[in-house]
């Protein structure tokens, strides 16, 4: 299979690859996130399927050149349908020795290692903890295809006639690397040049020009010196026709929340307190002022959720966003939300725990907390997004359930989804889930806890509605009237009713789709962000002839109806999760089956290969 690259440029041999995994790694100040994003955009525009994932250093900027300061961005581009940013690398760009040290272990043997020799002086490699220049140490670089370029020099030379100072010049060097990569994959420079101009053009045209110059210089250099004896080509993927956009999970969540507001015509309120990795949702919604979104940066997580409770009471689509430690602080008020039967959404972008834990790493270990983390009998629905794009749809779903059933809803995402991206085939507006919100305005026979016989939801009344004044609160209340009640039987009744209301949602949510046959030796059951990792693994395992299928939960509590029947079709259930077995234990309380827990708690997502190996092992 051969294709002509868009600009028809390739001079030498072109190797066609199904896919490639590329990681850009350098110092925090080296602009790796930008470089990675630009490369991804060009791949997306070209028509690849792709998935990206950034790997930030711990929160504070570490000293330049140190291991702690390394920042990386990974992208997998493919001519197939893919679901994860991949694991082992085909290409690693290492802008300095620290980046080399941290990321080399992930490079495939035989993979291309592009290094910026301009940053490999003695002081540089000493800072990274090497005792000699790693590029000269065969035991280190021998397994790889080492490509050395002095990007610093190349950049300086290119820009020597500009008016930029040295600092500004050196900031352009990532574009030299990008130019080389674009050459390597036979990509047209045009879209990138356009993007650079859009980004810097207005405010700093001289910077835009410099970056473009360096980009071109990098490409030309690679071509001229024939940096590799052949280049690569990853063909377009057969994506469904449509308009696409690359989107990160947090971005999708923010957009989904706003979409729910636009769909219902009810104003959006966010009460939040910054916390990694959830803060970006706050940032995004804060920029939605023109759409009438009210964002309140509260003094702490307790005030954040309490203001959200107040906003829900006042008749807004109300949401609070946070991560695990923040949810811990919100649990008391979540209980109030359950008792007062108010509709709002809590988004938990999970991170490594317990306690402060590993704030910049991903984990799925807040499931127990989500389902069971409150005092008293305090059930509430728990949803989990399966991919960056799914965050959009689950945010809408969370509001649909909250307002229909008058209940707080917990939506779980995680650091991996939050910062990872994938192409999103944009939906037609008319295809988006429809749901209406009803505010009770008829005082005739009104009671604050009179329930809809089907959903068991109580009415939602906006304060200000004439003749419907009433009082609610956290004390147990009489069903119907909502008056405070210390009656024993009423309490039991209310406990059961609140439970029945939430469990009743099981009928109103889609049964999860089975990927594979409905009977077999093994079902791989997952929830949340492991979707892509499991999908790829099950796919391969099926190709290898294993009788394995995948079931993925996006509605975790309650389970959708019919999950028990699906499970019954399989001999054993393998449950990979980024925790010590939380879904496994939860499933045991719901459906008895032969579960095999497969935990991984390293702050990193599962790789397809890991899951595949585990499937083989279990079925061996």
């Amino acid at each position: 299979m051969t294709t002509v690259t868009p600009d028809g440029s390739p001079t030498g041999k072109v190797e066609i690859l199904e896919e490639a995994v590329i990681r850009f790694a350098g110092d925090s100040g080296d602009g790796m996130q930008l470089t990675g994003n630009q490369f991804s955009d060009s791949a997306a525009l070209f028509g690849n399927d792709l998935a990206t994932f950034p790997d930030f250093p711990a929160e504070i900027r570490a000293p330049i050149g140190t291991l702690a300061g390394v920042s990386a961005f990974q992208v997998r581009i493919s001519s197939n349908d893919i679901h994860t940013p991949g694991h082992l690398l085909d290409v690693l760009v290492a802008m300095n020795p620290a980046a080399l040290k941290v990321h080399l272990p992930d490079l495939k043997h035989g993979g291309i290692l592009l290094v910026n020799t301009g940053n490999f002086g003695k002081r540089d490699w000493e800072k990274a903890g090497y005792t000699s220049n790693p590029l000269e140490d065969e035991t280190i670089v021998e397994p790889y295809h080492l490509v050395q370029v002095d990007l610093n020099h190349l950049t300086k030379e290119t820009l020597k006639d500009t008016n930029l100072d040295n600092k500004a010049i050196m900031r352009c060097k990532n574009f030299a690397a990008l130019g080389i990569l674009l050459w390597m994959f036979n990509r047209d420079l045009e879209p990138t040049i356009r993007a650079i101009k859009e980004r810097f053009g207005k405010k700093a045209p001289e910077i835009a020009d410099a970056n473009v110059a360096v980009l071109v210089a990098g490409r030309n250099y690679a071509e001229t010196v024939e940096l590799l004896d052949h280049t690569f080509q990853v063909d377009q993927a057969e994506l469904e026709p449509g308009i696409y956009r690359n989107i990160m999970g947090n971005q999708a969540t923010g957009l989904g929340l706003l979409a729910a507001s636009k769909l219902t015509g009810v104003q959006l309120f966010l009460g939040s307190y910054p916390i990694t990795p959830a803060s970006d949702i706050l940032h995004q919604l804060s920029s939605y002022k023109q759409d009438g979104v009210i964002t309140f940066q509260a003094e702490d997580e307790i005030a954040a959720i309490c203001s959200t409770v107040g906003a829900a009471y006042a008749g807004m689509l109300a949401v609070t966003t946070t991560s695990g430690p923040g949810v811990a602080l919100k649990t008391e008020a979540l209980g109030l939300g359950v008792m007062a039967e108010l509709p709002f959404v809590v988004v938990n972008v999970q991170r490594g725990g317990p306690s402060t834990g590993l704030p910049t790493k991903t984990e799925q270990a807040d499931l127990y907390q989500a389902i069971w983390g409150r005092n008293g009998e305090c059930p509430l629905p728990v949803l989990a997004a399966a991919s960056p794009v799914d965050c959009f749809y689950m945010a809408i779903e969370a509001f649909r359930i909250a307002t229909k059933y008058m209940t707080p809803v917990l939506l779980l995402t995680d650091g991996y989804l939050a910062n990872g991206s994938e192409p999103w085939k944009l939906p037609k507006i008319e295809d988006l889930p429809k749901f209406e919100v009803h505010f009770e305005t008829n005082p005739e026979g009104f009671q604050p806890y009179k329930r809809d016989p089907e959903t068991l939801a109580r009415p939602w009344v906006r304060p200000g509605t004439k003749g419907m004044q009433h009082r609610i609160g956290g004390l147990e209340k009489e069903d119907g009237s909502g008056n405070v009640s210390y009656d024993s039987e009423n309490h039991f009744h209310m406990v059961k009713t609140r439970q029945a209301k939430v469990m009743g949602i099981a009928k109103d949510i889609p049964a999860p789709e089975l990927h594979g046959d409905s009977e077999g030796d093994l079902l791989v059951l997952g929830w949340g962000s492991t979707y892509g990792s499991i999908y790829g693994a099950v796919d391969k395992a099926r190709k290898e002839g294993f009788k394995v299928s995948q079931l993925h939960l996006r509605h975790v509590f309650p389970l959708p109806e019919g999950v028990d029947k699906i499970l019954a079709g399989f001999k054993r259930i393998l449950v990979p999760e980024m925790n010590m077995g939380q879904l496994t234990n939860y499933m045991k309380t719901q459906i008895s089956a032969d579960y095999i827990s497969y935990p991984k708690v390293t702050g990193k997502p599962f790789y397809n290969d890991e899951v595949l190996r585990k499937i083989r092992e279990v079925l061996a």
Partner: protein
Amino acid sequence: MTATQDSPKGKLKKTFFKSDQEVRWCPGCGDYGILNAVQSTFAELGLERENIVIVSGIGCSSRFPYYMETYGFHSIHGRAPAVATGVKLSRPELEVWVITGDGDALSIGGNHLIHTLRRNVGLKIILFNNRIYGLTKGQFSPTSEIGKVTKSSPYGSVDMPFNPLSLALGVGATFVARTIDVMGKHMREVLKAAHEHEGTAFIEVFQDCNIFNHGAFDPIVKKEVRDDRLVDLRPNQPLVFGQDHDKGLIWDCNQLRVVKLGEADETGKVWKEEDLVVFDPSNPNPSLAFALSHLREVDEPTPIGVLRSIKQASYEKMVHGQIQGIQDKKGERSLEDLIYAGKTWEVK
């Protein structure tokens, strides 16, 4: 619940604001007087019941919303200002009142209180200060005096109390006042001033807990001593007090000092009204208000009335003003605009 009833404006009775719930405070509790005053004030102001939201925390005082025929939310301990902030930001057109106790507002809820005050959210906060935890049956609170013997301090408390007014002034409150459960008329005036204020109005009410801290305020509020122990602040008036209007406050050596009017002091100086400090609650600089709040309860008069009332845009006005401004400039976007934004590409 009560059926719809039109608010007969201008000639409301306080019963108009009475809910059908039986009031359940202990006999003799100071809370009754406050409930009374609030109902009367709302009636006098001719407010619409459906436009009022009363949010409370947990405590004896926080049962208040049940007794009011308005919208009410009995939330959780200490969090009423945060819940109410959500309500007010969402619906600036509603009257939002917060009812809280000295434990609720100043102990567990201290953080929300100070942030609400600095932001100037348009809430009217009534703090029922009985200097004790009533609902949990008598532990010392952050306003209990040192040495107080309670269930949790059987040998006397060793915790220095807060001065609620100084605290409020220190964090930037724009309206700060104090009144007393047994002084109905005074209270109603203060409540009305609070109602009129833009932004947070903070009102401390000295409230007698008949069961666990009876008589805590007697030394200053009993009818016999009241006039000599309280100084009722009147805007732009010299600071005079005393049964016979014979005492006043001057500024001396960087603080306020009490002088007797018309008599010579040890230095031979005879003090007259025009020597006294003239007090203006609308002064943006809170220095004098702070000095007043710090008068020592033991031997100096305790200020009541409005200590501070300045003009400053409310938080909700700022928030909505900003939104409005941006909307006016940029216009709302359709969902389509929002989704089909950023770098998109087409696959055919």
